[in-house]
């Protein structure tokens, strides 16, 4: 029997669909930490990116963060998050993974928010000011809306990276779909490794397509 066939048997085995180690629970753990982290990262990076884009102060921070962020491997970020979590007495599993994914999600969201807001046509801002809008109104009613599609690209990049890297959480004793791959390696169970790999790939591609759909919704409609 081929390995793929074995993996399909593993994927369709009812025993793998219930309990803590079951597929539904692992998918839930994977999605839970991914959504939680991206939301926390967005809650920090979007306001900061908007402030920097609006005022033009702190541009250096954005450029440095996005360059450094690209050069640090996500595996290294996960590795560094482990001793930090231990130092802070946060234990294994969830928190080291959260720290790593959070650090990973910040640069794309921050950079895109900054680019989106800074890229708003200055004439439009002047016009809004001429219409009597204050800073806060300009930010809320003009810059935020025009920047939304670019911000969404950043959220999509961050989400796909976070879902992919959450797989590595299993190395620091976290949950999620990576468990099947890491545990499968440990006991040399090819069916489980392959089954886990297939599930992770499906989840990543689903995330990409889903966020792509949300991104299209955020694009401003050209109305007359």
């Amino acid at each position, binding site marked *: 029997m081929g390995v793929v066939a074995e993996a399909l048997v593993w994927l369709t085995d009812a025993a793998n669909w219930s309990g803590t180690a079951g597929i539904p629970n692992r998918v839930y753990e994977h999605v839970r930490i991914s959504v939680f982290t991206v939301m926390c990262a967005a809650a920090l990076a979007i306001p900061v990116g908007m402030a920097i884009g609006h005022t033009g102060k702190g541009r250096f921070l954005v450029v440095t963060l996005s360059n450094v962020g*690209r050069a640090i491997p996500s595996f290294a970020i996960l590795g560094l998050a*482990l001793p930090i979590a231990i130092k802070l007495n946060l234990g294994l599993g969830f928190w080291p993974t959260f720290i790593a994914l959070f650090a990973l999600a910040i640069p794309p969201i921050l950079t895109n928010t900054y680019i989106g807001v800074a890229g708003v046509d200055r004439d439009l801002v002047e016009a809004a000011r001429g219409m009597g809008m204050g800073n806060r109104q300009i930010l809320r009613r003009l810059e935020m809306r025009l920047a939304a599609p670019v911000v969404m690209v950043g959220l999509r990049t961050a989400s796909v990276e976070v879902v992919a890297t959450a797989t*590595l959480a299993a190395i620091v004793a976290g949950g999620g779909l990576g468990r099947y791959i890491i545990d499968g390696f440990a006991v040399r169970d090819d069916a489980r490794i392959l089954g886990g790999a297939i599930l992770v*790939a499906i989840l990543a591609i689903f995330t990409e397509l889903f966020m792509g759909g949300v991104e299209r919704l955020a694009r401003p409609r050209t109305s007359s």
Partner: protein
Amino acid sequence: MILAQSTEEPFFRPEWVGRNLDRIWEQLVEHAYLTGLAIAIGLLISIPAGVFAYRHRRAYPPITWFAGFLYTIPSLALFAFLTAYTGLTTLTAEIGLVSYTLLILIRNVVAGLEGVPPDTREAARGMGYTSRQMLWRVELPLAFPVILAGIRVATVTIIGLVTVTSLIGKGGLGAFILQGIQRFFSTPIVVGAVLSVLLAVAADLGLLGLQRVLTPWSREKKWA
């Protein structure tokens, strides 16, 4: 061997580095070798694929779709999938790493070819160049700066991904990160993370220097 990192364990023990200099050098060389090989094979695939996509425009969307699909699959899942066929070998690592170079490289080959001025093409044709001669003597040399820009991005990406191959028994500097995680010992994690970032920065600057030396005309453009 330190089995559990207490909260008092320092992040970094310099004496560990002194004791492991030989191994650090070996892993650094392996890291550079795995990266260089992946980029070289990636180019051998991407240049013909990019030229083909440039000449047959209808082939471009499916080629980028496929390369994008490979790029979206999380690295650990791809390596895990491949181990079922090619085991814990350098071949497995390279197939995975090469897959991740394709999207970046093919896009840049096509963009580079698109940037060749039509006048230059006309002149070459007028001088009696065959399309093969034109490709090698005119189009690819003129596309080179853009292709090299793609090589730089791909190299930084691959240096990061090599660390993940530590989970299939390779990994270069990533082996230190994995070792540190498994033993709760932060010093090798810091060494692996810092050196892989330094390697990425050095490779990026080296390739930038190479571009300046090989294509002096692209440097002059800045002042023109």
